[in-house]
């Protein structure tokens, strides 16, 4: 079976359409992978909940949860049981259909992102040849879910949170797409499998600026510190999901962790060379890299304060967008002019350009407005 034989390169033969030699053909392949993806996502999301709480605890000189099961491993299970036994409250004057649909609209696109991610060489649900474009497009749909949640709650805080959410999420889509384009230009294809194939040295070395821009834009897309003003506990209680309880709240909570998982997986595939690595089996490398990226995201969360909403917008439009465009320009020039040059010279050149650009931008742009005359 092609799944367990990493040497066989399938996508060279069948780019994007039916996988070969599966008895029963397409539908068995689809069924097996759907089960694998669902199991992977849900288990890893629960694992991430546990891991985040333990890691944030260690960063703060304390232990995380350690009572429920050995090392607190069953804590997400306890959380799930608690959430399921809560009463499902629906605001009386809110729009009931929209209220019911919002968590669904927010959750399903996140799950669909995992269909194009390569876990091993050729092991994906569907090797679309527009892989990364599909990912960016689908993950924009969950913004609609967030806004529906805020609107239908009939609550001023929720509406405030939803407005902030829409403005933030929409503005960060652009640097996100542009930083991905740098990688696409280097790899020559939009399909995620081909991008991993093309990484003889990981793209993080060839595109350091692109990596930083992508991490910042993705952190903003998934509402993580320093951009987590949507659910800032100290300001507007809980933002757009203030009025949700029970299973609907569980879906929003799960959306947050599945989005972190999706971003970690995409960063691993695009920048860290996916499943490639010397000694261990490819699946293990994949998991190690995903956990590494997640640890960095948690580390940033534990240290850094939160930005204000106008500062967030200024950061996206005035800082990330021009830098992403310049990055794309430079990558394009390099690919056209020097396709045969040793990759290491280009690495140092790109690092130097990144340092210069960051210094230049920090000196000259202003982060957000000041006081408004009332």
């Amino acid at each position, binding site marked *: 079976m092609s799944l367990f034989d990493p040497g066989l390169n399938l996508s060279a033969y069948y780019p994007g359409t039916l996988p070969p030699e599966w008895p029963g053909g397409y539908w068995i392949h689809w069924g097996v992978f759907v089960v694998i993806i669902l199991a992977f996502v849900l288990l890893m999301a629960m694992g991430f909940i546990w891991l985040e709480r333990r890691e*944030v605890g260690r*960063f*703060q*000189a*304390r232990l995380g949860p350690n009572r429920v099961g050995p090392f607190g491993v069953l804590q997400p299970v306890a959380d799930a049981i608690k959430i399921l036994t809560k009463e499902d409250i629906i605001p009386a004057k809110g729009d009931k259909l929209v209220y019911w649909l919002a968590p669904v609209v927010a959750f399903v696109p996140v799950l669909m992102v995992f269909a194009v991610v390569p876990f091993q060489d050729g092991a994906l649900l569907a090797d679309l040849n527009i892989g990364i474009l599909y990912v960016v497009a689908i993950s924009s749909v969950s913004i609609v879910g967030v806004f529906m949640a805020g609107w239908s709650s009939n609550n*001023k*805080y929720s509406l*405030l949170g939803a407005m902030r959410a829409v403005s933030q999420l929409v503005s960060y889509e652009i640097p996100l797409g542009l930083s991905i384009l740098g990688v696409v230009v280097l790899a020559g294809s939009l399909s995620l499998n081909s991008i991993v194939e093309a990484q003889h040295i990981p793209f993080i070395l060839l595109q350091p600026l692109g990596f930083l821009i992508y991490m910042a834009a993705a952190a903003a897309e998934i509402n993580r*510190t*320093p951009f*987590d*003003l949507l659910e*800032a*506990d*100290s*300001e*507007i*209680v809980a933002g757009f999901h203030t009025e949700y309880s029970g299973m609907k709240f569980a879906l929003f909570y799960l959306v947050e962790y599945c989005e972190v998982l999706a971003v970690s997986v995409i960063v691993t595939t695009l920048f860290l060379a996916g499943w490639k690595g010397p000694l261990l089996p490819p699946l293990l490398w994949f998991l190690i890299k995903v956990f590494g990226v997640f640890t960095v995201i948690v580390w940033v*969360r*534990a*240290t*850094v*304060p*939160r*930005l*204000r*909403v*106008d*500062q967030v917008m200024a950061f996206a439009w005035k800082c990330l967008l021009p830098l992403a465009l310049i990055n794309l320009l430079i990558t394009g020039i390099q690919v056209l002019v020097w396709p045969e040059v040793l990759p290491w010279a280009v690495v140092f050149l790109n690092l130097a350009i990144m340092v210069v650009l960051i210094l230049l931008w920090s000196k000259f742009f202003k*982060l*957000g407005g*000041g*006081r*408004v*005359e*009332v």
Partner: protein
Amino acid sequence: MVIKTEPFVVNIGPAHPSTHGVFRMRATLDGEVVLDIEPVFGYLHRGIEKLAEERTYTQIIPLTDRLDYLASMSNNLAYVLTVEKLAGIAVPERAEYLRVIMAELQRIASHLIGVGAFLNDCGAFMTPILYMIREREKILDLFEMVCGQRLTYNYMRIGGVSHDIPEEFLPALKKFVDRMPGFIDEYDQLLQENEILLARSKGVGILSREQAINISASGPVLRASGVKWDIRKVDPYSIYDRFGFEIPTGSAGDCYDRYRVRVEEMRQSVRILKQAVEKLPAGGVRSEVSHLVRPPAGEAYGHIEAPKGELGFYLVSDNSIAPYRFHVRAPSLLNLTALREMVVGWKVADVLAIFGSIDICMGEVDR
């Protein structure tokens, strides 16, 4: 086509994760910009001033613990100084040194919570406040060694302090004083130059010098606006004129300056502690005063530099065992009157950052 908009009123309510205690603000917002803010407090009113009229002078000391419950030693000290001023009672030398040691330790503990809560309000997810609580626990251990409690100490008495220190106190205090500057440096490395904190707090919530003097602000709020006024230097009480220390002042009067003033005050307190530990004399710790003190008829106002500002007690006595009138000049209440001017024109997120930087304690505001 012009879209009609109107401002709406949002209640940042009494039970909120980051109003320091039960405090309610009714904010009129136009989008994200705050047009007007109306503070509503009184949720923690316990009638301390009336209760004090029915208790003897010694029995009021545990009552003053509960005014600013994060800095109880300072409250005790201010009250006891006022009664001694009213009744003309002298205090032995060792008791004066012990009082200074306790007051400065309490200043460090209160500023740790004040700075930590401000950073928490700016969004740093509990990491700085947990580090600071770790240090505060060390101070509370020292207090527990001396008087048995960790929050409401009831340590000062009229005429001295209640008990002498045990013999393991001084070595532990020396260890703490040696290590504390290292911890303050660690906090500085964590967040002093953090760009996001600078963007959130520099230039935000400016209280100008004239405004600060006009509303009778005091404490770090006043000093961050550029006024060099500290009661320990201007009107020295107890034995503060024997110690060498400086008064940190800011220049701009924004949230960042208030944060820096508090951190620098912690460093100066460590300096005073070092000097006090070296010069501690031997002797008694309490002069002979009966439990039922009867000061002569008259009035007195005694004030100290508490961590939150100028804490003053106004006592009127009519030569009986209980005061005739007991009034508290609470620094947090007066500093809070500046909230509206500082906040108007900024955004919702800044309201909480500015409110956290004033550092109030609702026990004092409502008493």
